[in-house]
């Protein structure tokens, strides 16, 4: 048996080593790849749980290895959210599926105005997945969870036949606590409100595209995947219930998210294209590929719709945070054209910004 295993069963010293991601504790020589038996519920499943997951995610609620975690909850509003992650490739510039799976659910909770309390993690592994890749993903999940300060308290693992998955799929769910003075909901957007974003759009989507098979292009772009709970807490600190809506514009991009808000609050939204932060590298890639950055996926970005009197304070709070240096006021909520998003183009013309139909497909010429 490899040294890593012997140490993995040990005490604190081994735990520290694992957390630093030095060595995969599963004997690679014996099981260099995931096999169906790793999901069979027997000895190999137990080995994954005991050697890899529990030491990595170590926390009291998980340690019991019960069918679920039992949590102490303060008697306040709870937020509960779940998200599945199927990103391809699983390792990409600036992140991987593991950190993304933690950030995604933490951010969904943050968008409810909640402080994350606990996460679950369910893995669907494809037979043949290199054990080393799983190890990297698990370490990345743990590093992300530790940075956020949220424990992964329960989980599940299944293995599917080779060809029936794509390496690894991850589902995370999370519970968060909402302070009594916070009332964040898409329906609360109202005429007069101001729309802010914490930085440049479309970075994640373009970074992922740059490494897809058949589409590799050279760019220094890194995914901006990041946990937003802290910057959101700062925004809520300065504006409290005057923060009306928080949303992270992930799939479908800024345009689709704002359309959803306009529809559910029955208000109109007007954007000013010249104010929307956009990096040159992203803009260049979008021009070449014929994509509209308004529809490209984001991570680590959020929209805040706030009462006008708090807009400058919120902007200052965002810009004071490392994840909001390029924050900007990009538009306003209006009573006209309810349910529709309009954009004032860079040259001053107006147009509707619609929901995306299907996937954005690159053009012929």
């Amino acid at each position, binding site marked *: 048996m490899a040294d890593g295993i012997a140490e993995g069963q040990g005490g604190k010293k081994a735990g520290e080593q694992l957390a630093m991601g030095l060595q995969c504790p599963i004997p690679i020589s014996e099981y260099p790849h995931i096999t169906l038996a790793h999901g069979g519920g027997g000895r190999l499943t137990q080995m994954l749980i005991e050697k890899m997951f529990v030491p990595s995610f170590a926390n009291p609620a998980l340690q019991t290895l019960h069918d679920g975690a039992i949590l102490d909850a303060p008697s306040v509003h709870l937020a509960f959210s779940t998200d599945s992650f199927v990103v391809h490739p699983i390792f990409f510039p600036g992140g991987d599926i593991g950190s993304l799976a933690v950030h995604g659910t933490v951010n969904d909770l943050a968008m409810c105005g909640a402080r994350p309390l606990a996460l679950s993690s369910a893995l669907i592994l494809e037979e043949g997945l290199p054990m080393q890749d799983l190890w990297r993903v698990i370490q990345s999940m743990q590093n992300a969870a530790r940075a956020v300060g949220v424990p992964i308290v329960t989980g599940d693992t299944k293995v599917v036949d080779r060809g029936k998955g794509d390496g690894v799929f991850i589902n995370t769910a999370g519970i968060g606590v909402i302070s009594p003075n916070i009332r964040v909901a898409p329906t609360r957007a109202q005429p007069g409100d101001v729309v802010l974003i914490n930085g440049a759009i479309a970075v994640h989507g373009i970074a992922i595209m740059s490494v897809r098979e*058949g*589409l590799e292009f050279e760019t220094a772009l890194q995914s901006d995947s990041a946990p937003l709970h802290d910057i959101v807490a700062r925004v809520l600190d300065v504006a409290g219930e005057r923060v009306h809506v928080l949303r992270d514009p992930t799939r479908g991009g800024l345009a689709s998210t704002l359309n959803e808000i306009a529809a559910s609050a029955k208000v109109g939204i007007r954007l000013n294209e*010249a104010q929307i932060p956009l990096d*040159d590298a992203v*803009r*260049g890639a979008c*021009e070449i*590929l*014929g994509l509209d950055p308004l529809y490209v996926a984001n991570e680590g970005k959020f929209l805040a719709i706030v009462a006008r009197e708090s807009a400058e304070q919120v902007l200052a709070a965002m810009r004071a945070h490392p994840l909001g240096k390029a924050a900007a006021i990009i538009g306003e909520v209006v009573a006209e054209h309810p349910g*529709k998003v*309009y954009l004032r*183009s*860079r*040259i*001053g*013309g*107006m*147009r*509707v910004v*619609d929901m995306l*139909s*299907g996937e954005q*497909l*690159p*053009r*012929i*010429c």
Partner: protein
Amino acid sequence: MKYIDEYHREADAQKFIAAIQRVVTRPWAIMEICGGQTHTLIKFGIDRLLPQQVTLVHGPGCPVCVTPLELIDRAIAIARRPEVIFTSFGDMLRVPGSRDDLLSVKARGGDVRMVYSPLDAVKLAQKNPERQVVFFAVGFETTAPGNAMAVWQAKQLGLQNFSILTSHVLVPPAMEAILGSPSNRVQGFLAAGHVCTVMGYWEYEPIATKYRVPIVVTGFEPLDLLQGIYMMLQQLEAGRAQVENQYTRAVKRAGNVPAQKLIAQVFEVTDRKWRGIGEIPRSGYRLREEFAAFDAEKRFDVGSLTAQESPLCIAGQILQGLKKPRDCSAFGTKCTPEHPLGAPMVSSEGACAAYFSYGRA
């Protein structure tokens, strides 16, 4: 961003709009040939900034829109074959054939892949010698050099497993078809800058003279289009009918001569059917006899497949500038980007899709 921001400046746009307002004294109908230009006009709201006397009619220059329905059916028939890797530019994948589109062939297990260059398809053929790789080679003169290069390379490499399904079309014959129609209302053309980058603009000079119609070679950024429209209106108001070049930073009169030579080596001019318009003589390219081995229609014997268009769709009249998308009874109701009845609603360059997406309903 250099070479982009210069063409998006609001102050400069306002100057051109003021200049256009000063020069216009009468109503004029101008056709922009290319769907990319239609897209910019609507996306930046240029159509709403122009004086009311200026009507922009949207031309047939959308390769997705004018590709005949039966060709899409043939593509689908080929893509369904288990030995085939079917490759295409992204926006052809969603175009519905008579019953299906290429994306649903992929969903049912067909090997359909999006590529960014026909040369990537050649590489795929080299990497997969046991499979047949087919590239869907549609488009105007702009994409012809790349497609010609792919076939030429495949021949040099001696590839037995590469072919193209082609329906290339050409701009000048389509312009003549529009100008020759008794119901024509187009008084001036903004020629497609990208096409002219390859072909130059000498071939438009006889058209301007014969039909007494001004033609301005125009780029694709908002300021390009505003300047092109301004140059066009100056000609129309002065009664001139010349070929002028707004897109001087990319287009020369002779065009890209090596690219033209390569096209001529691989392709020859042929009659072509245009979706919604019908057959136009000598309006497209087909592979020359010495490259016939790379013709997917022959290799997979799908040349006899025919198809019937939706009777509700008025794509032909829209592509000829006779009607606007909102003149169609199916627009936005029976025909939407999710359920397109005709090609102009499918492609992001199509006039109907541009009107729908940017709220010109």
